[in-house]
């Protein structure tokens, strides 16, 4: 066995993630290979050093603030959904009524009516196009998805 055949197995050996058979083969190789022994020693030393280092545990006060912030977001999530649905419904209804009023009003010029109708259609086309783009991106964007098990 040559060093090239083991390579990154040294890392797995240090982490106790090698299969028993591979572990035995690697240990046998170690008996005769100075390069791998040195690499193993350095990897072990680094692992021990890194395992001693930690992220800071937040204080009780920081944890309370942290959870409060998460809780506020959870609470507001439903509020935002209801607000958005309501706003969309009201905007659609109000817009429809406004256009209907303008189109039916004989005192308003045809040019103005055509302008309002074109504006409404333009907004609808832009909205649908943006929505479709977002949905297409979402389908292929692995980072926008959540984890399913």
């Amino acid at each position, binding site marked *: 066995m040559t060093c090239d055949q083991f390579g990154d*197995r040294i890392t797995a050996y240090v982490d106790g993630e090698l299969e028993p058979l591979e572990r035995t083969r690697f240990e046998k190789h170690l008996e005769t290979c100075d390069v791998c022994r040195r690499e193993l020693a350095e990897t072990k030393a680094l692992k021990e050093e*890194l395992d001693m280092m930690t992220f800071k545990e937040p204080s009780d006060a920081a*944890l309370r603030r*942290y959870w409060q912030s998460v809780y506020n977001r959870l609470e507001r999530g439903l509020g935002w959904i209801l607000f958005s649905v309501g706003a969309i419904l009201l905007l659609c209804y109000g817009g429809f009524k406004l256009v209907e009023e303008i189109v039916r009003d004989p005192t308003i010029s045809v040019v103005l009516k055509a302008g309002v109708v074109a504006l409404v259609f333009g907004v609808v086309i832009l909205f649908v196009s943006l929505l479709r783009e977002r949905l297409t991106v979402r389908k292929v964007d692995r*980072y926008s998805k959540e984890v399913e*098990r």
Partner: protein
Amino acid sequence: MDETEAALIERCQGGDQDAFGGIVRKYAGAASGAAYLMLGCREEALDASQEAFVRAWRHIRRFQPGTRFYPWYARILRNVCISRLRSRSRRRTVALAADPPARSDADPEILVERSERERRVWQAIFALPLAHREIISLAHFQGLSYKEMAEALGIPIGTVMSRLHAARRALRTKLAGEES
């Protein structure tokens, strides 16, 4: 998975937000630290880790009971962080590969620095490319197994092994370079 966590998760899946508070408090430190290593900014790390908890809560019913919560959450957190890095790179019109700038000082609110040596190691970690920083963080500071890392990163176990090996080598080289 310890029984306390299993019980908390069961209550979460029943809609108990107080139980979720227990889960959040348990992992807030690890989550903030992991996000900080990816994003390099304390405020953004706190915000991203909180956003990931909110997403986890919304999908908690999909979580498979009997497995550890943190590796599942780590994948959500990673997605949130990657999304933020991508928006950041779009805003600044630089490639994601450029990574967040290496920091000269680790944030004492997030990372523990007990010695000058630890300070140098944190600095060397921040100077690594994102993929290396990320796998070092998952393996050493978040305590994931190779299988859990493979799931969190969406890569085969063999790639976890080679990436971790390359990351440790790069870190050793950086530290050796500093000492010489």
